[in-house]
């Protein structure tokens, strides 16, 4: 029982969440007789279960909530089994949902998402999963609850599980466990249920007891956050704080951030005596060997692998206050143990939490999530939220009310490249071109979906490859599975999508390759950007031209049909614009030419331009 799991339960009031938590408390024998006696009285008085115990009443603590029949805030529940000790954050499922769930999820290692088997995967289920993923929770159980109300149907459970699993592949989960359950009956909550003989997986408690939330790798670089300078007298000067990552050891060379100060860990002091090492999570006091200047908010880090420090970031922002986030307004932000001035630029976009779609936004309202560039008044040590929650998270504080009005997660620093000096290299593009026996270039295929870009590009590559050229084909769909899988199809994302591809193509040109790029790339500005990233004469724009009506008739992937039905948003040609090239280097008309003929025309065109 020395292990602690913090998890969050997500679901609406109707999904039986309070009942589930009450049931877990009840079954883990954590309810005392006086609690149970009070519960029995309350169940009769205000319960919804007739003469039976209404476990939800155990959890709906505040008097105001009982009257309304809903819970209004994050509540923390404690229980323990022989295997583990648990802290459950219980969050309500109505309008303040985002704020409450983000709060509960920020300290959770795992999430239990509840849904009502009669209703299946709803928008709110996707919202819960999306928020959990965004907050960095990797371990998720889907509790398919109220299965008693669908006759413990295996079919219902299987189809819900499959639908959720398919959706969850888009999220950053290490795995999803689906449990067929009835919290009111107690089926598969603690003990396997005879009512689901077809299910041989874990019960919900079994999952909670066994899920591995991943102890951090022991060889991670150390990060120690200084909270308080400890100076009892002139002879002692220590830094009290917490090991956020890695293990801090006596004798470690450390760098003090921000800045470039170096020292060595002389002592790790605790009231129980000095330690030789302090593992992740320890609260200790560090004495350094040198008299370096260290203050609250500084980070001591493994000297050879320190975090960066910066003052401007792209961040995910969750707005928590009734007053909107106003770009340009001066706020305070607390990051690590440092509070500093803060402003946000206009949001790049707002994330529609249910659909994960990106929408334009000028401000962020309460319970909205958006992405924006943000600016701190001071340079702060940081790590991306995905790497280190402690150094990648911040809260935004109103200067007048002192209220906590927003929460942020750092994606990346904006000016990091300013600190990275470009390396001059001896083996350059020219040297590689000589070795390869041909010039490198980008052949950029643009056109509507279904125009035939990828087919033609593939045929062109075959021809060039057979001719001894070093080639590489960057295909839109393939790249979206990897490098750009975080991007959607809004205008902003399309811009970023092409920006990345253009950068990759330019690197490959440096590597000496003929890079064939097959992307819809609807906007002229971005195609111009791609051209600008390589040298004059190294870029060839191929317009694969087809009228929309023809492309739609072909519809090889059935996408136009979906878009017309409204199932695909932002589809080029339907509800998202395509700007055809005004002066392409090569144009092929695929209504007149077969793919093979088109490919031959492209190769001929490239030869004419001296590119192959």
């Amino acid at each position, binding site marked *: *029982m*020395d*292990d602690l799991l913090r998890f969050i339960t997500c679901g609406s009031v109707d999904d039986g969440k309070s009942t589930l938590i009450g049931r877990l408390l009840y079954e883990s024998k954590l309810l*005392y*007789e*006086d*609690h149970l006696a009070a519960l029995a009285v*309350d169940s009769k008085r205000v319960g919804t279960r007739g003469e039976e115990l209404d476990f939800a009443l*155990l*959890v709906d*603590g*505040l*008097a105001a909530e*009982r009257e309304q029949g809903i819970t*209004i*805030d994050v*509540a*923390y*529940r*404690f229980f*323990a089994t022989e295997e583990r*000790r648990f802290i459950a954050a219980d969050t309500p499922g109505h309008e303040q949902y985002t*704020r409450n769930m*983000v*709060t509960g999820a*920020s*300290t959770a290692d795992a999430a239990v998402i509840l849904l009502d088997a009669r209703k299946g995967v709803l928008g709110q289920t996707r919202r819960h999963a999306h928020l959990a993923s965004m907050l960095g929770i990797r371990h998720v159980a889907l509790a398919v609850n109220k299965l008693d109300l669908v006759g413990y149907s295996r079919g219902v459970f299987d189809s819900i599980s499959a639908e959720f699993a398919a959706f969850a592949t888009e999220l950053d989960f290490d795995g999803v466990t689906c449990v067929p359950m009835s919290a009111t009956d107690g089926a598969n909550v603690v003990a396997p249920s005879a009512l689901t003989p077809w299910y041989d997986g874990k019960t919900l408690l079994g999952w909670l007891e066994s899920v591995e939330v991943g*102890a951090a790798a022991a060889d991670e670089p150390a990060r120690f956050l200084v*909270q*308080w300078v*400890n*100076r*009892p007298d002139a002879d*002692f000067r220590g830094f*009290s704080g*917490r090991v956020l990552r890695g*293990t801090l050891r006596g004798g470690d060379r450390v760098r003090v951030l921000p800045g470039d100060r170096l020292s060595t860990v002389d002592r790790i*002091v*605790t*009231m*129980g005596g000095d330690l030789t090492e302090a*593992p*992740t*999570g*320890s*609260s200790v*006091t560090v004495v350094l060997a040198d008299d370096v200047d260290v203050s609250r908010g500084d980070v001591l880090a493994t000297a050879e692998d320190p975090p960066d420090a910066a003052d401007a970031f792209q961040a995910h922002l969750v707005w*928590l206050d009734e007053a909107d986030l106003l770009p340009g307004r001066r706020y*305070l932000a*607390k*990051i690590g*143990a440092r*509070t500093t001035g803060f402003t946000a630029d206009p949001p790049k976009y707002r994330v529609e939490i249910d659909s994960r779609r990106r929408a334009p936004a000028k401000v962020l309202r309460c319970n909205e999530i958006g992405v924006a560039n943000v600016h701190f008044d001071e340079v702060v040590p940081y790590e991306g939220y995905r790497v280190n929650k*402690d150094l990648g*998270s911040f*809260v935004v*504080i109103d200067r007048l009310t*002192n209220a*906590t009005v927003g*929460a942020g997660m750092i994606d990346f620093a904006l000016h990091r490249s300013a600190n990275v000096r470009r390396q001059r290299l001896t083996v350059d593009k020219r040297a590689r071109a000589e070795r390869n026996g041909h010039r490198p270039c980008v052949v950029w295929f643009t056109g509507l979906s279904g125009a035939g870009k990828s087919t033609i590009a593939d045929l062109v590559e075959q021809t060039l490859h057979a001719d001894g050229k070093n080639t590489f084909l960057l295909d839109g769909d393939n790249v979206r599975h990897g490098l750009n899988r975080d991007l959607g199809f809004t205008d902003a994302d399309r811009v970023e999508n092409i920006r990345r591809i253009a950068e990759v193509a330019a690197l490959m040109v440096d590597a000496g390759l003929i890079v064939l790029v097959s992307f819809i790339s609807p906007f002229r500005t971005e195609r111009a950007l791609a051209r600008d990233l390589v040298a004059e004469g190294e870029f060839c724009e191929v317009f694969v031209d087809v009228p929309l009506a023809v492309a739609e008739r072909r519809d090889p992937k059935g996408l136009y049909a979906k878009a017309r039905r409204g199932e695909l948003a932002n589809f080029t040609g339907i509800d998202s614009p395509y700007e055809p090239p005004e002066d392409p280097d090569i144009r092929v008309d695929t209504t007149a030419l077969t793919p093979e003929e088109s490919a031959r025309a492209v190769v001929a065109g490239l030869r004419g331009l001296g590119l192959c």
Partner: protein
Amino acid sequence: MTLDHLSRLEADSIDIFREAVAESERPVLLYSIGKDSSVLLHLARKAFHPSPPPFPLLHVDTTWKFREMIAFRDETVARLGLELIVHRNPECVALGVNPFDHGSALHTDLWKTQGLRQALDEHRFDLAFGGARRDEEASRAKERVFSFRTAQHRWDPRNQRPELWRLYNARVAPGEGIRVFPLSNWTELDVWRYVDRERIPVVPLYFAARRPVVERDGTLIMVDDGRMPLRDGEEPTWELVRFRTLGCYPLTGAVRSTAASVPEVIEEMRTATTSERQGRVIDHDRGGSMERKKQEGYF
């Protein structure tokens, strides 16, 4: 090497102490002498070692505490060389407020709720550490670690700051305050296991001994001094009892027990069938009563 769960709780609590001290002007530790206060004080000492805790202790006295509690308090403060402020509501002293004549609700409100407010105002404390735990009572399950109080010391459950990650916000305007609960995520069992592990001294009343008690309204009340008026037919009997929680002796129920040491107390807890607050007379005044007391400023 990873931290076991008691060590993780300890590290979290120390983290909270340091953040609170770094972000406040005049912190104070509300010391109520019970086991939670003993653990709280131990953690405060750990958080700032080798410095002493950079704040005084405040005991809001009611004059109705068990005599052993006061002796333990004074011994602890002397042994550790700490600064202790004892506040007794002067109006209560003048009126002789007691639970018998004034009832438990008024007694508690005047001595403790009003007394605490007086002491915080008098010393202009802007941050007060308390030993409350979320597992104690339903309304506390939603309590923040850093709990904001208005200039009138009121707790508004609808107007609490969202608390994300470990980023605590202790900023207040003049007159406003923050209550900080470093033991928020501890359970009663954690507290006892930690008392055991760290060999933390606690008031002997937690351990079974023969004590003079009367059974009144279903609760075993210890007759701690001659001020307790006995009802007709009540005759104190010496019974083997202990206390799971400590407060004013006339308002604190004893339990029959043979657990005379920390390991025995832990073993008893594992098989206990009632919660620790069950012995608290004030909690049962009315449904939602703790929530109401908190709104009014009771700790």
